């Protein structure tokens, strides 16, 4: 039964995670997936799953988190990538099959994919140069 297995596993998971804590804080990356009704209906759950699978396959440490609707429902699934010292970038209509390229270009090559970008957030102030077309 997985439950019995889990408690032993969790100690190992915790130790492994604590060891990687310092590295992770130095290179902090957070990927945020919109998971409101609109996001879910547009396939955000599968997009999130594809992101986790891709990160694991490439051995990239990044936090993945889900949030509610931010009001740009037509662009769902929305995926934000936030990296220390860089603007938070929002990608729109991110399908699972786009995830591999997204991770490679943005996280590995450090080149945001401009044609997929629907918004930027710099220093907590929303930029107006990329107005969403709704």
């Amino acid at each position, binding site marked *: 039964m997985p439950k019995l297995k889990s408690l032993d596993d969790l100690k190992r998971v*915790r130790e492994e995670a604590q060891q*990687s804590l310092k590295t992770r804080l130095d290179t902090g990356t957070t990927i945020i997936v919109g998971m409101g*009704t609109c996001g879910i209906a547009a396939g955000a759950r599968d997009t999130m799953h594809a992101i*986790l699978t891709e990160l694991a396959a490439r051995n990239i440490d990044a*936090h993945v988190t889900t949030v509610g609707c931010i009001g740009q429902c037509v662009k769902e699934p929305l995926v934000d990538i936030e990296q220390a010292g860089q603007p938070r970038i929002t990608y729109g209509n991110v399908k699972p099959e786009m995830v591999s390229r997204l991770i490679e270009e943005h996280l590995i090559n450090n080149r945001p994919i401009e044609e997929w970008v629907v918004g930027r957030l710099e220093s907590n102030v929303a930029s107006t140069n990329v107005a969403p077309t709704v």
Partner: protein
Amino acid sequence: MLELALHVLDILRNAVEAGATQVALTIIEDEPANRLTLTITDNGRGMDDETIRRALNPFYTTRRTRHVGLGLPLLAAAAETAGGGLMIRSRPGEGTTVETTFGLDHPDRQPLGDMAATLLAFLLAEAAPDLRYTHRVLRTGFPADNPVFAQEREFAFNTAAIRAELEGLPLNHPVVARWLAEYLAEGERELKEVEHNEPGAVEGAGV
């Protein structure tokens, strides 16, 4: 939405938006009673009678980012299409319970779908409440009135226990999230394997 697990994720998200710190999700697939029940209970801010009444209207929402609220109406429609229904119990300050029933073998019932992926998406939410999860599967005996081959299986966990073990590490830590994904997928997979084991069990018993 084409699977019930997606509706469940949506209703679980309501609990997050309602400021809940504890959520219980119970799924019972009851073959003898031919009924599937999904119950979601939270300790969020709750709703008064007027809000409950309006919650099933798709053109009502408490949100300010948009003017429609489709989660509960879509789930209610999915339940009614499959010979069941949706019931909301709630009181301001005490939380909300949404109970949905479906005819288990109703031809128009949506499949339960990928519950493991739904649970993961919920648990990785910002400020995810603690979740007590129970997924119980009751299988009919063979023949139906013979209890010998009737089976009951359950996959259950409580994130409070998981969090205690993690000593402050967040659930969305990369290492923890990878473990969670495997744990949830394995738990759900074992429930489904009941079906595949059934013919072997019958054959082995020489019926």
